[in-house]
């Protein structure tokens, strides 16, 4: 993984000193909360319903054991002994004192971490495929490019006061696990016939109150032009993006209002003046950064592990876990393990300090000291020997982390909702908890198969409900919490926005409604291999509407 050099370390230390100075001015009253707000946001500090919240950047979701232990330590010392992993591969601490912030940032700097640009109207922490460098279907490892983009976008003098937040995601595999088509810029690294690397560039996707799928502006942008092209996109957006209405300020609205052709022309025009100059990526530099992401030393192993097969035959719980939570690795005899942070009845994405420490220890022992955070709010151990899976499974189970539900109906994404967020209309976490209790039976979950439920507490869509196979949106109906259901959304390479099924449901009916949708699917699928999404795409909304509103 990437390691800071002296320059990187000096940069983060200077930023901590700068923020310490800003916090001191706020605490002394020299700055008002209004003046302080954009400054603290640029450093990941939010004012929530009950307290300040700190969002720590986990660039493209990659962590070492040492970094995870530091996060556990911070949770223990400064917070309530837990942290919350977010849909942007970051970590939030929900109960932090403003006066403690500088000290926490210094602790983070010790392990090459920071909170820069995890919020505010700037280029946010860059996200990437959480299986990067390990997935069997990968063409190009996206992490070196994500790192280069992270550097370029850090305290960018031109793009620190954009009309609105700006999110980049990078993938390099056939299956899009980074949801690039619902990002402001989505990049797919690929190779041409000659083997050269380039990028498909998607612009103007997003969720929120106006969900849009991005447009592809380039099919193969040469590698060397990556930064110049991104700078051109950002410049057009910074100058032209709407600033009169924050709900229309994202680049997706600009692309929509001006039209793809006009925006593409403006970007190409800017790009022409930036290309071939200081922003060109030299091949030697790319190679130097890519070297940090060289694969760990992995052994030559047979594809099948007799040890694992025997253990599975003896233990149905292990078999279930392997079936759902282990994905194909590019090296034979290895697997990618998803550590579910969605145990039945607990808030999605939360991990206690003890669990973070446990994952750190298991990663050091079984996964070449690497951990990933997925945008589905789970953790990933990317390089595990199949032979080691029984022992790893036991270690995870001891920490309460062996829930075998990756990608299943209880692997729910939910935003913080009304329990934490001042913008919320409705609670999301309790709804997720109740759904996971309803579907707690593992046999039933495995029978239902792949099904992504995503819940947002308001139209800002932080829970990504638009791209949930089943999406749930909290709305306010005359002061009462109501929930609207959308069906058929997907954030992968077949990206689609979910369709609203009909009138919403009160809090005491929403779980029944989800169950009716699932039962309707089980009744109409052609065979157990036809997933919910495939079935929905075949039959459309109607059968589900009939199931939900039969007696209306």
């Amino acid at each position, binding site marked *: 993984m990437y390691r800071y*050099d002296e*320059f990187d370390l*000096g*940069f983060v230390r*200077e*930023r901590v*000193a*700068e923020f*310490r*100075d*800003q916090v001191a001015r706020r605490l002394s009253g*020299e700055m008002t909360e209004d*003046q302080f707000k*954009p*400054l603290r946001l640029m450093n990941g500090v939010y004012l929530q319903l009950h307290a300040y919240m700190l969002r720590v950047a986990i660039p493209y979701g990659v962590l070492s054991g040492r970094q995870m232990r530091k996060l556990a330590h911070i949770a223990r010392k400064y917070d309530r002994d837990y942290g919350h992993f977010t849909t942007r591969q970051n970590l939030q601490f929900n109960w932090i004192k403003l006066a403690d912030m500088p000290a926490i940032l210094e602790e983070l700097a010790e392990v090459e971490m920071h909170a820069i640009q995890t919020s505010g*109207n700037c280029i946010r922490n860059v996200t990437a495929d959480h299986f990067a460098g390990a997935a069997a279907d990968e063409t190009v490892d996206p992490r070196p490019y994500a790192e280069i983009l992270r*550097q*370029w*976008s*850090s*305290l*960018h*003098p*031109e*793009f*620190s*006061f*954009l009309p609105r937040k700006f999110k980049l995601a990078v993938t390099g595999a056939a299956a899009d696990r980074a949801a690039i088509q619902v990002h402001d810029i989505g990049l797919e690294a690929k190779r041409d016939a000659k083997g050269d690397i380039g990028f498909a560039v998607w612009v103007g996707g997003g969720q929120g109150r106006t969900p849009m799928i991005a447009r592809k502006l380039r099919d193969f942008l040469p590698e060397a032009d990556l*930064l110049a092209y991104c700078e051109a996109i950002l*410049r057009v957006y*910074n*100058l032209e993006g709407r*600033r009169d209405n924050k709900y229309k300020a994202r680049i997706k609205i600009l692309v929509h209002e001006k039209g793809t052709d006009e925006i593409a022309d403006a970007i190409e025009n800017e790009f022409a*003046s930036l290309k071939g100059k*200081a*922003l*060109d*990526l*030299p091949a030697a*530099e790319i190679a*130097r950064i890519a070297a940090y992401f060289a694969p760990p030393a992995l052994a030559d192993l047979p594809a099948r592990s007799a040890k694992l097969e025997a253990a599975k035959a003896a233990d149905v719980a292990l078999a279930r876990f392997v079936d759902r939570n282990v994905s194909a690795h590019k090296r034979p005899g290895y697997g990618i393990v998803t550590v579910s942070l969605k145990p039945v009845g607990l808030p999605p994405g939360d991990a206690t300090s003890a669990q973070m420490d446990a994952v750190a220890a298991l990663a050091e022992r079984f996964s070449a000291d690497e951990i990933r955070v997925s945008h589905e709010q789970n953790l990933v151990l990317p390089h595990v020997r199949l032979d080691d899976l029984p022992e790893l499974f036991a270690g995870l189970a001891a920490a309460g982390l062996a829930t075998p539900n990756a990608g299943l109906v209880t692997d729910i994404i939910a935003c913080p909702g009304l329990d934490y967020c001042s913008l919320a209309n409705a609670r999301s976490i309790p709804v997720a908890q109740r759904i996971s209790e309803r579907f707690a039976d593992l046999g039933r979950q495995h029978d239902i198969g792949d099904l992504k439920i995503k819940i947002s507490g308001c139209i800002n869509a932080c829970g990504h409900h638009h791209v949930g196979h089943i999406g749930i949106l909290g709305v306010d109906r005359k002061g009462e919490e109501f929930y609207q259901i959308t069906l058929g959304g997907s954030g992968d390479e077949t990206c689609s926005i979910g369709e609203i099924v009909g009138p919403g449901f009160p809090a005491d009916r929403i779980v029944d409604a989800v169950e009716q949708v699932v039962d309707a699917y089980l009744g109409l699928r052609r065979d157990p291999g036809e997933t919910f999404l495939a079935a929905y795409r075949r039959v459309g909304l109607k059968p589900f509407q009939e199931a939900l509103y039969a007696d209306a």
Partner: protein
Amino acid sequence: MPTPETALWRAGAFAADDWRFPAAGEPVPADGKVALPKARFLAERAALAGRNGPIGVVLESGESLADIEDDVPRFGLIVLRFARYADGRNYSTARILRDRLGFRGELRASGDVLRDQVLFMLRAGFDALEIAHAGTVATLKEGRIVGVHRHYQPASNEIGESAAGLRGWQRTSRRLASN
């Protein structure tokens, strides 16, 4: 434009303003440095062509370079006004002026110019700041701006920065001295 309450900081030191900003209706002085709002400049462009003395232009927040791009080489001063510091359009305008249009005159930020943005402004190509905020004036005078001087991207103050280290896009800038 500069009032008794604002201070002009230019290329590292506080200075007296040598530009004049005629009020609406007030005739343009025959000589000396004079800067005009964009609309007035456009209306009087032909007449100004024969004038003795440098001309500048003042762009209000939200005004673009449209219609005056060709005039850029003749300007001695361009003022970009920040109505609110969180409106970042001027950073792009500044970079286009410096890097694409080759503007070498004084590029001045005015309006909501605050200490926490000074380094961004200098990197984007501004070399003069017209500051109303007393705390910012004091901090600059005492050389107390705390900021980040290691940068991850080339910007528009390339002569003021050095390309430190291995990465082609890496820069460092100097701390602002007190004066």
